[in-house]
């Protein structure tokens, strides 16, 4: 359901998972960035972003994801993505996101490979 958007955070001992729902545009992207920065401020440098419920992303959403990667790279952290559609995965590879962040089919493997 692309009409609604939401962000869920699951904080674990060593990592945190951010799950998005809806169109990853400026509105949802800014919320995502804010949550990610809060987690980083709180010491989480191992993050997983689950995009299973986000089938649509625009260029602003992509730029926000790149920024989160940049911040985490600066802090020698790690970011893995999961739940991507095949188009999203190709987009992430083409935009070089996959060069700096892992892409995994499900949350379990994304967490395991942090």
């Amino acid at each position, binding site marked *: 359901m*692309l*009409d609604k958007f939401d962000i869920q955070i699951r904080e674990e001992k060593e990592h945190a998972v951010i799950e998005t729902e809806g*169109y990853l*545009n*400026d*509105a949802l992207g*800014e919320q995502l960035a804010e949550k990610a920065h809060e987690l980083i401020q709180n010491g989480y440098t191992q993050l997983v972003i689950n995009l299973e419920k986000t*089938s*649509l*992303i*625009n*260029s*602003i959403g*992509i*730029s926000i994801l*790149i*920024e989160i990667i*940049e*911040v985490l790279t600066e802090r020698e952290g790690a970011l893995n993505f999961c739940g991507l559609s095949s*188009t999203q995965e*190709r*987009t992430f590879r*083409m*935009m070089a996101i996959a060069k700096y962040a892992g892409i995994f089919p499900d949350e379990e493997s994304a967490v395991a490979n942090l």
Partner: protein
Amino acid sequence: MKDPSKPTSEDSLQADKTQNTAEQTMERLIFSLSELEHLGQTVISGHSNFNHSSKTYLRITLGTLQVTRGTILRYHPTRQNLEVVASAPDAVFSPLAVEPDEVANLLQHPFIERAAIPESLEQFFTRSAKLIETIDVHLWVPLKIQDEFLGLIGLGKFLGREALEAWEKELLTTLAHQISIAIAYSQMVEGIQSEKFRLFMLAESAPQICQLLQPEAAAEQVVHQAVSLLDANAGALMLTRPEQQQLEMHFTFPETLVEDIEEHNGLVIPYGEEVSVPPEATSADVLKSVVNEGIPGHCPPKSDTLFGGKNLMAVPIPGRDGDVLGVLVVGDKEERGGSIAPFTDEDEILLDSFAKQAGVAIENAHLHQEALEARQLQAEMEEARKIQVNLIPDMLPDIPGYEIAGHYEPRGPVGGDYYDCIALSTGYWGLAIADVSGKGMQAALLMATLRAGLISELSRGDTTVVENGEQDTPDPAVLYTELAEMALTLNSLLYASGTEEKYATFFYSHLNPETDILTTLNAGHNPPLLVRADGTYKWLGEEVGGIPLGMFPNDMVANIADYEAEHVQLASGDVVVYYTDGVTETVNIEDEYYEEDRLVEASKACKDSGAEAIRKYLHDSVMGFQGEADQFDDLTLLILRKQ
């Protein structure tokens, strides 16, 4: 090396005592050069997002110039404001609105001192009072590359001195230039990333949507991809209905947008008339114009509320034949930070290219759907034909003193012709012929319903049997009433059948072979032809024909044309020809109808033959008339001949 950006109290005291000593100046210059190198490296290898790096730039600037407070503001031309991207001390400020003439004035001044604010910029700095007060800004430096305004640096109180020296101002100019390059670089990287994304999405999405075979799924993907491609936050697909000259809404994003559109009666927009697009055009006017002229259109925000007052861009979706299949609409192009930007010429070209692919996808999906429906219809027709054929008797019974022959011939799409001859428990015979409306499975099921209802009614008993159990000549009045009631029951049954086209013309004959009385009831069917042995003829049920079964509820039937029965006395050699309209409406290559007159002549010509020979003669007559012409209705004949 000691970091001058972190002065100690001892340093401050010393600075007060011995300002600008050669040694201190040299030390700061060396620090500045190393920081400039650091800044340059940050610019070329740093983050794509300037806002993220801006704190580093501010720290270097303040440290180099020995200032403890300061801020960097980034200019957003589409939002016409300055965003505070870094400040020392760190604080959150609202963006500062800046008018175009103020931007032009800011570009005129390399430095703007707090004590000498130009009159033309007084309002701007008055609006910025909170920031100026918090940072205690003493000096402003516009950030620019050539004539492009990029932002501002604001510097607080200078440590140990009232103003910057000339060489410090030169250093500040160099720093400002480096920061301007960083902003321009960031903009360029953001632009390249965005264009790369859009081009990839355009290349990626086109083949994907062309593979979608369901029209609904194709429509949804077309809208979603267009919204994503254009960084829009809304979209819609409207398709044309050329016969009605209307645009019809097929999909919106978000889906809740359709409720707004429906509220403003925008789900269907007529486009037939040429529409000039005045400056105050509504979004409906723009969409009409896009279809009529086949070129993109724009609708400024707040022009109306049809699409929630969004800034719209619409492009035609071309079909293979060059006609316009529909209109693809996107609304409100987003910018980072929540502002809405106008759609550009490049956006229009991009959406136009995508719409061409969307046209192929939509046509593919519709062609696939049509092929699927045709295949399903074909399969349904075959099933329906089987059902229909099974309902028509293989053999007709022997009626003492009579000959009977029937013929059913499917021609074209499955219709709903039916005939039957049913032996009643009382020794009478029920002869029925019907033509149900519609075609395919629906007609076959309606026919099955009619037949089941008829048999059920006929087997309910017979009030024409006298009390002592012996069969007697029925009272015509009682039989008339029974047949009328039966017709009402069948009418009610078909009316309640729930199918869309749920009526049937029906003719029923109740034959008493003992008395040779044929009691008939007509419900909108072609009157059967009675040809007497002497060659005279009459149409049965012509005068008292009721309306077809299932067309209206029973309580309305009486107001329109009640079902009434009548009877005729048959004599030796009389022939009754029952038929459906497939006989009289058979056309020849001259587009002439066979009509009732030819049926009369042919029937008279063969009346002295047996029933089967009459059937064959009439069939041959119709087929001979038809010749090579195509027929679209079934041909049914039922012949009853009194020996």
